[in-house]
C-alpha cells in the first residue's frame, strides 16, 4: 500500500514537471512575456549567472559523489602526502587536473572533506583551483600576451594566498570551521560502501547522492546570483571610471567589482582586458587574484559548508592579501 502511494505521488511529481516545462515552451513561444527594463535586466543577469554556473555545479557534484562512493579513504590518502603541511600545497595544484569553475569546486571540496580530508587542506584546493588550472592560465595569457607578469603574479598569488588560508586554519578543529549540517552530512556519507552491491543499487545510490548534494547547493547558488544581479543593475558600472585615476582607489574599486560581478575564473581575464585601458595593471591584477576566490556567488555556496565567522575571516584575509598584491605590482614591478 505504501509503495503504491509512493509510486502514485512520484507519478504526480513527474506530471507536474512535465506541465511546467510544457507551459514554459508555450509561454516563451506564443506570449513572450517580459517585465519593465530594469526588472527584466535583473532577471536576465540572474539567469545568465545561473545558466553559466549550473553545468559546472552538476559536473562538480557528479565528480564529488563519484569520489565519495567509489574512492576509498585509504586510496585517497595514499595518493596524497602523509604530512598535512605537504598535502596542502599538493592539493592547491590539483586544479590542474580538474579545470572546473569555482562553482563546481565547492561540491568537490565537500566530497573531499566527507572523505576525511581536513578542512584546512581542502581550503587550499578550493581557493587555488579556479586560478591554477590550464584553462585559466591559458585565457589569461591570451588576454595579456604583452604582460606575462600578470599571469605570473596571478598564479603565484593564488598559490600563496590559498596555502596561507589553509595554514591559518590548520590548527583549528573541524567543529569550529564547518557548519553542523555539513558535519552531519560527512558523518553519514563518509565511508565508501565496502559490501558489494549490484548495478541497480549503485545507480540508486549515485542518483540519490547527486540529487541531495545538488539540492543543498541550489538555494545558495540562486540567492547569490540574485544578489549579484540586483547590485549590478542598481549600481552603474561607469561610477568606477570616476575613481580609476588614483591607484589605491582603483585597486579597491576593482576588488569591489570582482566581488559583485561573480564572473567565471576561466574567462575573467577577457573581461579584465576591457577594463585595462581605464584601470592600472595593479588594479587588474588585484581583480584577477580576488575574483576567483571570493565573490557573492561563491560565498553563498560556501555558506552551505563553512561557518559564517570563518567565511568572514577568509574573505577579509583574501581581500587584504589581494589588495597587497595589487600594491606590490604598483610599487615594485
Amino acid at each position, binding site marked *: 500500500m505504501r509503495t503504491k502511494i509512493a509510486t502514485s505521488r512520484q507519478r504526480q511529481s*513527474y506530471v507536474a514537471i512535465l506541465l511546467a516545462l510544457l507551459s514554459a515552451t508555450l509561454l516563451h513561444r506564443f506570449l513572450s512575456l517580459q517585465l519593465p527594463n530594469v526588472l527584466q535586466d535583473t532577471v536576465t543577469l540572474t539567469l545568465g*549567472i545561473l545558466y553559466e554556473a549550473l553545468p559546472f555545479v552538476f559536473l562538480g557534484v*557528479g565528480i564529488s559523489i563519484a569520489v565519495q562512493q567509489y574512492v576509498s579513504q585509504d586510496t585517497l590518502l595514499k595518493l596524497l602526502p602523509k604530512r598535512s603541511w605537504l598535502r596542502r600545497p599538493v592539493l592547491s595544484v590539483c586544479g590542474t587536473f580538474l579545470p572546473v569553475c569555482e562553482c563546481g569546486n565547492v561540491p568537490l571540496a565537500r566530497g573531499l572533506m566527507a572523505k576525511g580530508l581536513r578542512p584546512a587542506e581542502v581550503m587550499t584546493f578550493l581557493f587555488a583551483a579556479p586560478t591554477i588550472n590550464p584553462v585559466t592560465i591559458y585565457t589569461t595569457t591570451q588576454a595579456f600576451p604583452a604582460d606575462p607578469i600578470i599571469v605570473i603574479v596571478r598564479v603565484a598569488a593564488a598559490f600563496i594566498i590559498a596555502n596561507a588560508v589553509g595554514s591559518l586554519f590548520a590548527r583549528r578543529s573541524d567543529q569550529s570551521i564547518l557548519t553542523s549540517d555539513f558535519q552531519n552530512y560527512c558523518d553519514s556519507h563518509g565511508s565508501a560502501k565496502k559490501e558489494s552491491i549490484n548495478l541497480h543499487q549503485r545507480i540508486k545510490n549515485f542518483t540519490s547522492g547527486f*540529487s541531495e548534494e545538488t539540492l543543498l547547493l541550489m538555494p545558495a547558488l540562486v540567492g547569490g546570483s540574485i544578489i549579484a544581479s540586483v547590485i549590478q543593475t542598481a549600481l552603474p558600472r561607469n561610477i568606477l571610471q570616476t575613481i580609476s585615476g588614483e591607484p589605491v582607489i582603483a585597486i579597491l574599486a576593482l576588488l569591489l567589482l570582482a566581488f559583485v560581478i561573480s564572473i567565471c575564473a*576561466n574567462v575573467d581575464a577577457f573581461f579584465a582586458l576591457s577594463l585595462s585601458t581605464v584601470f592600472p595593471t595593479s588594479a587588474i591584477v588585484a581583480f584577477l587574484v580576488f575574483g576567483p576566490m571570493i565573490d557573492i556567488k561563491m560565498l553563498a555556496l560556501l555558506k552551505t559548508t563553512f561557518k559564517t565567522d570563518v567565511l568572514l575571516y577568509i574573505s577579509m584575509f583574501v581581500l587584504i592579501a589581494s589588495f597587497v598584491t595589487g600594491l606590490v605590482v604598483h610599487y615594485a614591478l
Partner: protein
Amino acid sequence: MRFKSLHKLTIIMAGCLLIVALTGKLTLYIHPRYITFTTLSVAVGFMLLLVGLYCSSTKQLNKRYGSLLSTMPLIIVTLCAVVLAPSSLSQSLASSRSSISQQNNLYQTAHSTIDSFSNDLTRFSIADWNNLLASAPSADTIENKKAMIEGFLYNNDDNQLYVARFRLTCCAVDATPLAIPLIQTDTFADLELGSWVAIEGVFKSTSDEQHPWQLEVSSISQIEEPDDPYIF
C-alpha cells in the same frame, strides 16, 4: 520546504535551460563557446535528477530542507524562467555601463576579425568601428568614411546618443556596450531609446572632447531585433 518540492523546482530550472538551449536562445545568456558543454552537462544533470526523484525514498522526499524564506529565491527565479521569455539586455543597462565601453579597444585588437583599416569599411561592424574610434584615429583614416551598422539606440547621462550592441565574454553579467556616438538631429525624434536600427552615415569631426568623431546619419530605418543581438 520539502526535499520533494525543492527537487521538482531544480528539475524545472534545468529543464528551462534545456528549452532555451533547444530553441537557440541560450546565447542571450552565455557565450557560444559554452553552449555544447552547458547543454550536455545540464542534460545529464537533468536525467540524473529525474532518476534521483524516482530513487529517493518516501522519508527522504518528505524531509525538510531549509525554511521557505531561504528557498523563496529559487521559487521566484524558477517562476521567472518558466513564465518570462528569454530576452536580451536593455538600453537601460547600456546607459549605466556606457563610459567604460568607449575605451574597449584592446579586446578588439586581440579578437577583431578585421585584417586592416584599409579594407572595405562598409563591412565594418560596430565592434570594428568602436575599435577604430578608441585608437584615436587620424582625420584621413576616418573623416567622411561611410559606415553601415545595425544596433540599438541609447543615451548616456549627458544625453549623448549612441548606436550600440552588447559584447559578452562569459555571460550576460559581463556584457559591455560597444557604442558609436551619433550626431543628434531631428531624424531620431520618432525613434524610442532601445529601438533597433540600421544606420548609414559618415564620420564627422566635432568639438566634443570625449567624442571627437561622431557619425552623421544620412539614412536610418527601424529593424527587428536580430536573433543574435550580442557580439562575442
